[in-house]
């Protein structure tokens, strides 16, 4: 059975504008999916809606995680179930160090997994795991004591997103344009992070505009997303085709007056 399953999912903004117009998608354990689409197609809105952002309302269809209905859950409950979103624009939290934030988040997830009982990670174990993960992702040690995303470069923010993913060990990771603005070294690190996460019980959904990251992490499935819908599906070869031909072939014919 798929871990993450979307059935005819519709998403609207608070003002009623429909952004996602009926999406069917199933991500199973061990699978890497790529959702590719041009700017403004609604990819990020789909990611936010999946994670439970209050500004994106699911107006129709189903979103299931391991068979459980996500729609009524808060973002925190979704995270506790094992859903993770790597943000395109991670937010700064001045005064809270990366290490302190990481430990608080890890303990919140552990508590949920222990059925609501406090189950804090022992500090030496946390320290060891965190330092190992940072070294692996080529994140300098001093970053652990800096305030979360406060004054970070774009590349630092993205690496710290991947660090969070590695530490929290989600079952489904959604990466929202994590590859944008990264140099080749950083891109390889992100790709490594995804490959290492995905296993017999975990899957990933990589949302991207470009094929570039897929050179380093080969997707099992590629979905082409245009104007709120999946318009084409295939294997890794579809990504190469997109790289060569662009999205034009999938764009809808402009029809005057077709949108309210």
């Amino acid at each position, binding site marked *: 059975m798929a871990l993450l399953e979307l059935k005819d999912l519709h998403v609207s903004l608070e003002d009623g504008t429909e952004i996602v117009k009926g999406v069917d998608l199933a991500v199973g354990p061990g699978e890497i999916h790529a959702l590719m689409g041009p700017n403004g197609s609604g990819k990020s809105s789909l990611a936010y809606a999946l*994670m*439970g*952002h*209050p*500004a994106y309302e699911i107006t129709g269809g189903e979103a299931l995680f391991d068979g459980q209905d996500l729609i009524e859950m*808060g*973002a*925190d409950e*979704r*995270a*506790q179930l094992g859903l*993770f*979103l790597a*943000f395109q624009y*991670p*937010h*700064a*939290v*001045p*005064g*809270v160090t990366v290490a302190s*934030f990481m430990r*608080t*988040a890890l303990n*919140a*997830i552990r508590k*949920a997994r222990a059925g609501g009982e406090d189950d804090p990670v022992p500090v030496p174990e946390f320290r060891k795991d965190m330092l190992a993960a940072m070294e692996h992702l080529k994140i300098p040690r001093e970053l652990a004591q800096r*305030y979360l995303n406060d004054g970070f470069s774009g590349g630092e923010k993205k690496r710290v997103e991947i660090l*969070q993913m590695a530490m*929290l060990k989600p079952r489904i990771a959604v990466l929202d344009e994590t590859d944008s603005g990264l140099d080749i070294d950083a891109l390889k690190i992100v790709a490594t992070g995804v490959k290492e996460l995905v296993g017999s019980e975990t899957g990933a959904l990589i949302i991207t505009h470009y094929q570039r990251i897929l050179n380093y992490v080969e997707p099992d499935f590629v979905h082409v997303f245009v104007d709120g819908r999946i318009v084409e599906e295939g294997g890794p070869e579809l990504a190469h085709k997109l790289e060569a031909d662009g999205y034009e072939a999938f764009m809808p014919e402009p029809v005057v007056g077709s949108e309210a």
Partner: protein
Amino acid sequence: MALTETEVVGGIKTEYKYGFHDPEDYFFKSGRGLSHELVAAISEHKNEPEWMRKFRLKSLDYFLARPLPEWGGNLGEIDFDSIFYYIRPTEKQAESWEDLPADIKNTWDRLGIPEAEKNYLAGVGAQYESEVVYHKLKEDLEAQGVLFLDMDSGLREHEDLVKEYFGKIIPQNDNKFAALNSAVWSGGSFIYVPPGVKVEMPLQAYFRINAENMGQFERTLIIVDEDAYVHYVEGCTAPVYSTDSLHSAVVEIIVKPGGRCRYTTIQNWSNNVYNLVTKRAVAYENATMEWVDANLGSKLTMKYPAIWLMGEGAHGEVLSIAFAGQDQHLDAGGKAVHVAPNTSSIITSKSISRGGGRASYRGLLEVAKGAEGSKSKVVCDALILDEESRSDTYPYIRIDESNVDIGHEATVSKIGDEQLFYLMSRGLSEAEASAMVVSGFVEPITKELPLEYAVEMNRLIQLQMEGSVG
């Protein structure tokens, strides 16, 4: 009949942990209300010298003559006639927790004071109602000539020293509530640190109100002699009652040349306590005075710790936190008065309001003529957690000297939905996420606290946030 803890706390402020109270079994309790007879009786009861009796009675005249301040918060609802101005819970002060009545000892245990004393404090004074019921200083400090006593014992045992400074930094007619304290004061701390002595671990005083309609008026005097150092920490809590209590302290501090004093407050009164406190320090040549003033509790707080920079090269800092929740008005801040040349001061204020609470920064920066080469920086940041809450800034600046370097910055921010969503997407509940943003906001101040108090501060912030969301 006494209510159970749950009954007292329930429905008023569920997240306040210290709202319980003990049954009253007191050695002496005055009647309600204030009079010359009561003031004379307190003095007589304490067997004070004649000058102190006169000082008290004169102070009462000043209190009665002065109108209530019309600025700050709403003071009009204080019923001065219903307050108990003096309660002596035990006949004698204890030097061992075991010697206290069981209920009172139990209260201190629940507040964690004996445990803290064992682990990281150099001395402890524990005031319950009007009197300090427990007091102890580590022997090695005693041997070095450090005095740490309750104020009443200080007056009895070191009358000359007390007489030299008492009421000199804060005159008895300084303001209405300083006059009230001067009339009915009881308890508080008396500290003297001899020249060159550095007290490495903090001295802690803890103030507990237990009775309903209690008025607590502790009086503290700290003298840090040349090149000496002391860190004094005070904490305070009270039961939750449906009627109000009054806490009105006066704290006077003298830091002699080259000395340094840090005074840390973690104020966590229940939401039925008026907290109207006057705190002022004088710092002489190259001395340093630091007020770290964290306010989370009370119905209304009006408190502006002040530093008078009297000697060249003196430095003063005020770090102020005010966290106002539902039905709370915290009017806090700091004052720096530069009298001597080449003095410096920093005032940093962080205020947070939520649940309809109101947090205000009120501060004074004054540079007198002749205080040339002085520097001062005032930074006040406000964080507003919801639409119902309010934040105000009242910075008063008076500069009578042209050769000075003055900076003032103020920011107001609201907790962002995007920031909360980001943190919640990592598994934190809304309350945990908000508490994390608030903890980060006050971090420049909590990092100045000893570790144990920083942990306590963050825990109190979490408690303030719980029940505020949802």
